């Protein structure tokens, strides 16, 4: 298929349709409103359902309802909106329902700003809502990956019956890049009759299905948490995704970076290489499950003096990097916030300081 030039937000909308997701609920928020605008036009053309909810709180439950009824469904939002949807995320995860949430992250905390940020890493990977649950979190580094990961998100959500988040940022949502769409996703959500409230009439068992998260009996609630935990362990075994860049040679520094920030780091690494300085990059593509072993292996390489996590935040992913490197090498951090993005020149300066 030929490449087309598309804005990230619109490409994400189109990717959902090509993944067979014909149901979309959302509430406007900058910098992701173009997804809703695009789908408000496109979904009726393909016989789909578009609805603008009254709030992100309500949208979270529209997603839960549709997902619980066994239909493929997506919403998109940005940081403050995801905070409001986090209540529903906890419930959806607890009830073992598949759904796709896209967060086009903007600067926070509070109302923050509308420019790109990576300040929602903790929220996405460590919770956001209450209780012991995790989202599977995919982090694209541009429009092409945003499309691929949006489509893949539905497969993963249905594999685990767990909400999946595609976490981009304002840069990925707003910029235009050439994109090639993968083949349409042809599969249907599976085993719906075992769990979804899709009406008993077509179900062989003729027994009611119940989508719920209340377990008043402590043993039952413990059991549900164990079932969730088993899924997260399975994700760690089967669905970790990452990239190592310029990691074949003897690098002195390992940069850990993801998403938009990794694009800048890649440029800096190329510029350093031209000067004869070898720096590698570890880029997690799944933020949860985090590529724990892979970052460890890359960090402990003999030539590597130090690891530095470079983020558009005040230091969030760095905590996972530190955890995984387990003190074997020093782990440093550099970050800027609020729409400020560390430049290649700045990264080069920091790397040279680390090398000394």
């Amino acid at each position: 298929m030929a490449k087309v030039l598309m804005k990230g937000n619109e490409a994400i909308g189109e990717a959902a349709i090509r993944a067979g997701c014909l149901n979309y609920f959302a509430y406007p928020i900058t910098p992701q409103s173009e997804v809703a605008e695009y789908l408000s036009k496109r979904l009726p053309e393909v016989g789909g359902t578009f609805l603008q909810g009254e709030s992100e709180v309500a949208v979270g439950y529209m997603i839960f309802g549709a997902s619980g009824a066994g239909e493929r469904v997506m919403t998109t939002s940005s940081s403050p909106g995801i905070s409001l949807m986090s209540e529903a995320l906890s419930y959806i995860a607890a009830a073992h329902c598949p759904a796709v949430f896209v967060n086009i992250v903007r600067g926070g905390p509070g109302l923050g700003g509308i420019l790109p940020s990576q300040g929602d890493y903790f929220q996405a990977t460590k919770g956001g809502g209450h209780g012991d649950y995790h989202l599977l979190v995919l982090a694209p580094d541009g429009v092409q990956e945003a499309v691929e990961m949006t489509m893949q998100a539905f497969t993963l959500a249905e594999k685990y019956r767990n909400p999946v988040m595609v976490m981009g940022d304002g840069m990925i949502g707003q910029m235009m890049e050439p994109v090639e769409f993968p083949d349409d996703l042809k599969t249907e959500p599976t085993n719906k009759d075992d769990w979804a409230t899709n009406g008993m009439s077509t179900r062989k068992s003729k027994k009611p299905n119940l989508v719920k998260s209340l377990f008043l009996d402590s043993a039952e609630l413990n059991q549900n948490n164990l079932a969730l935990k088993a899924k997260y362990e399975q994700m760690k075994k089967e669905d970790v995704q990452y990239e190592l860049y310029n990691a074949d040679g003897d690098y002195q520094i390992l940069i850990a970076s993801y998403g938009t920030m990794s694009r800048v780091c890649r440029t800096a690494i190329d510029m350093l290489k031209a000067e004869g300085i070898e720096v590698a990059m570890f880029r997690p593509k799944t933020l949860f499950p985090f590529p724990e072993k892979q970052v460890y292996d890359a960090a402990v390489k003999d030539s590597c003096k130090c690891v530095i996590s470079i983020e558009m935040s005040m230091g969030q992913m760095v905590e996972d990097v530190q955890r995984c490197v387990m003190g074997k090498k020093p782990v440093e951090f550099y970050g800027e916030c609020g729409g400020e993005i560390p430049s290649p020149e700045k990264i080069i300066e920091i790397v040279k300081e680390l090398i000394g």
Partner: protein
Amino acid sequence: MGKTFSKPEAMTDNHTHYCPGCTHGIVHRLVAEAIDELGIRENTVGIAPVGCAVLAYNYIDCDFQEAAHGRAPAMATGIKRVRPDLMVFTYQGDGDLASIGMGEIIHAANRGEKITVIFINNAIYGMTGGQMAPTTMPGQRATTAPAGRDTAQTGMPIRMANLMSEIVTPGYVTRQAVLKPQMVNKCKKAIKKAFQYQVDNTCFSFVEVVSTCPTNWGMTPIDSLKWAEETLLPYYELGDYKTPEDA
């Protein structure tokens, strides 16, 4: 002689967890009877609220989803929009619907979602143990209003059916009660009508049911019925507030 009266098919054999004298059981039965009579059980999805009726799925025998506090109309919207062939109803109390869920109910009604809402108004929070609700009467004691509801601080009780009737989008809005057999019969008709509007894809339908909570009111079941009739009904007047035919 043939069987003349039996349990609705849409009710399970489970004993309810409701307190003695609570009217949830009556309303559950009316909902189940309406579902049976319309023959929709196998295509119906109920939404359980947060409140005493969270376990409604143990008693009403159809597909169910469990919402967070107040969010049932949003959840029902999600189901109905992606599966318009399913009959979707919510069953909510006054803390759930009239307090934390005020936004969701108003907007679901205003969009004209083709869902049915059963709203139990017993003027108090039940499951959490008798706290003040938006529907609590002036002077009525609650665990968070030990001296009785002070309207200077908390305003007057919200009349949901009246409020819902102001929404311009066509819909069916009625207030019923289950304090006497005649009222139960009328309420049954209203609930069936509310589901019928959904079966016919006509409009949003909303049935408020004035109910009792003997445990948290601190009264016997019989005194509760008397108190509800004397205190609640003059303020929460019964009848149809809006029908789609008005539009």
